[in-house]
């Protein structure tokens, strides 16, 4: 991306210089020397017009393709990226590692490992922005967004909220601590959590009574969840959906909107009973029950 940036900077300088130089040259060469002088009639030139339409157009097509291809690559996280879950709320960042470590306004990650963030917000729209990684993505309430990056140098980097989110918007900042693999392993041990996210999810799953219907042997009132995550789900109206994070979240909060064939719509909504962080834990648990191929959050 920086190559594109510097190319654009060069282009800007070139054209700015071109225009400025031409204007200054004309300004001096054709300054009015006497009030009586009469400039010649303006010549029109179609070839000139066409060339200064065509050349910038070609440059623009080139720039578009370059920018778009980089963007496309950046929107697709690589397989097997390390997962981090992010919940933004006025005015702090809650982050959780799959192993259960929780952090606030701070994220420890190993260097040279792709990291994929699954993000949502408890309230308004935020934006997870790490200038050093040239990466930002809005964090919205009511849906999951994701971004990924791969740090190339250990160190500590700014984390900013880039989407204006109210009074202490400029205080919603933090640091990304990029560590060498050994330091990171040490950090994980030092901050070992008693429970991984999936284990917290499992506990919630039991406490909320999910396990009374979602039985593993298929005899319950709800569908089997084992081995389902990432697979296709066919709704009663024939619509096919992938069972991804967003689907699972919706199924927990608004099950009536996802009627399944062969099951009566008896599941109550859990809206208001679970926080966004708890939903992420439930998802982590359901994922741990086995999954199909990895899916991407749109």
């Amino acid at each position, binding site marked *: *991306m920086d190559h*594109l*940036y510097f190319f*654009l900077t060069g*282009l*800007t300088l070139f*054209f700015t210089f071109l*225009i*400025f130089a*031409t*204007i200054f040259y*004309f*300004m001096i060469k*054709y*300054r*009015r*020397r006497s009030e*009586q*002088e*009469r*400039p*010649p009639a*303006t010549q*029109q*030139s179609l070839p000139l*017009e066409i060339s*200064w*339409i065509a050349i*910038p157009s070609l440059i*623009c097509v080139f*720039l*578009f393709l370059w*920018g*778009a291809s*980089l*963007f*496309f690559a950046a929107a697709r996280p690589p397989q097997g990226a390390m997962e981090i879950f992010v919940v933004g709320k*006025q005015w702090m960042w809650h982050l959780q590692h799959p192993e259960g470590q929780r952090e606030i306004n701070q994220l420890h990650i190993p260097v040279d490992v792709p990291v994929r963030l699954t993000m949502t917000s408890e*309230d*308004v*729209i935020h934006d997870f*922005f790490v*200038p050093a990684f040239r*990466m*930002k*993505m*809005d964090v*919205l*309430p*009511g849906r999951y967004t994701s971004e990924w990056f791969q740090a190339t140098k250990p160190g500590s980097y*700014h984390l900013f909220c880039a*989407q*204006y989110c*109210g*009074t*202490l*918007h*400029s*205080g919603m*900042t933090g640091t990304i601590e990029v560590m060498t693999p050994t330091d990171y392993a040490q950090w994980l041990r030092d901050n070992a959590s008693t429970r991984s996210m999936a284990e917290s999810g499992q506990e919630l799953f039991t406490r909320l009574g999910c396990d009374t219907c979602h039985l593993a042997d298929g005899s319950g009132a709800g569908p089997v969840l084992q081995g389902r995550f990432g697979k296709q789900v066919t709704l009663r109206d024939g619509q096919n959906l992938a069972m991804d994070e967003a689907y699972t979240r919706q199924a927990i909060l608004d099950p009536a909107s996802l009627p399944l064939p062969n099951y009566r719509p008896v599941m109550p909504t859990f809206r208001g009973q679970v926080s966004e962080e708890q939903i992420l834990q439930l998802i982590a648990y359901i994922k741990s029950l086995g999954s199909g191929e990895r899916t991407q959050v749109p």
Partner: protein
Amino acid sequence: MSTAIAEVPVESRMHYLNASYGIKSWLFTTDHKRIALLYLGSITLMFFIGGAAAVMMRLHLIEPAGALVQPETYNKLFTMHGVIMVFFFLVPSIPATLGNFLVPMMIGARDLAFPRLNLLSWYVYITGGAITLYALISGGVDTGWTFYAPLSTHYVTTHVIATSLGVFINGFSSILTGLNFIVTIHKMRAPGMTWKRMPLFLWSMYATSVIFVLATPVIAIAMVLIGAERLLHVGIFDPAIGGDPVLFQHLFWFYSHPVVYIMILPGMGVVSELVTCFAKKKPFGYIFIAYSSLAIAMISFFVWGHHMFVSSQSVYAGFIFSALSFAVAIPSAIKVFNWTATLYKGSISYQAPMLYALGFIGLFTMGGLTGLFLASLATDVHLHDTYFVIAHFHYIMVGGAVMAYLGGIHFWWPKITGRLYHDGWARLAALVIFVGFNLTFFPQYMLGYLGMPRRYAVYPAEFQVLNVLSSAGASILGMGYLIPFVYLLWSIRYGPVAGSNPWGAKGLEWETPSPPPTDNFEETPRITEEPYGYAEPEHAHV
């Protein structure tokens, strides 16, 4: 420095300023020229209020921890700055003042098609402005001028309703003005004033009016929906009650991107006039400049999504909006190249209006080219919502639109008031503004690249040097804006009499006395020649 404070003989000629006296003759006037002056007064007031907010923000940002106010107040300041400058200064700036004054005169008409509607639009503007000012004074609002939901509909406790009501009402004044211009340009051109004989300023006003009429209703709808969700808890934008926050962004930018062209197109029109006049040349590529205005107006409706590349909008939508955003750069580039080519072999003089026009071309070029960084998807991901964006759009709106506005005011001031201002002071002011502007906003490009997000009341210490530079520039810029205010007012009373055509300019408005009579022309003009006949022999010895 010898300002000739010669006693000007009392003019016996009747014109629009002395046709009648008293406050009522102004408040109930239907004369487009007087309404233009009513607008001029009100938007100048708004400009200084919005400018005061900017000054306080720049003062505050001198220190990383914030030198002046609490974050809450800072948020209110930038909201106030944005709301006032966008809706109550930049949008009406050139159209409602110079446009109102010049559209009928340039086509040889006595007034706009709907003079009373024109007066109504000023009252609508004043009502919207008064409500908004009330909201800002009685406690302020801290949503940003973008009113993003659900922050604006649920989470803030400030005067969102009153502000959005003010913006909603003000929208109708834009629509009425746009409607009036479109009908006037279609139906009231003097005999012989064909479309291709119209001054380029009119082409740009026409393109602007189309955007006024088509885009403004959408912001009105967005404001109503904000009110409905906030007051009645109808779930439109807030996902907690079943809404979609990205929908608001689509509605908002569907207006607020075209609105950028409402600000810049009139400026381009003004500059087209100034460059030809002070180079004594027919514009190079008249038809290309004219049609590029229409092209910009049209494309402007299809690029709103470039504000939303990282909003969770789909990747493929991002592709389309990025490509279209690059497309809008082409007609803008056409204009810049044509203006430059117009200078070629001209006879260029450097009175104050020309300095503003040249300043516009330079700053607009930089603002436009940095727009490419933001149209390009990959770079926008990094630069979005940083100071880079702030710098970019201030180069367009302040370096572009405001420079052109001031250039236009200086150019037509002798026509409007019948007096000349002091050219030396005016040139000095143009220079101070140019320097101050660059010092204010150029460092912000660098801040943005380094990653400083916008709307931050406090910031990491490493950004301080560039912020101090920017604040220093702002103080010069602020000074620069005060100078014209003083000498222009001075000239109304003490300036030398201008005569009907002090610049040796072409165009119908220069063929009638300054200030013009209430009916503009003694008799309806007939147009028999092409516009901008600067090279015609009979004018060689003027």
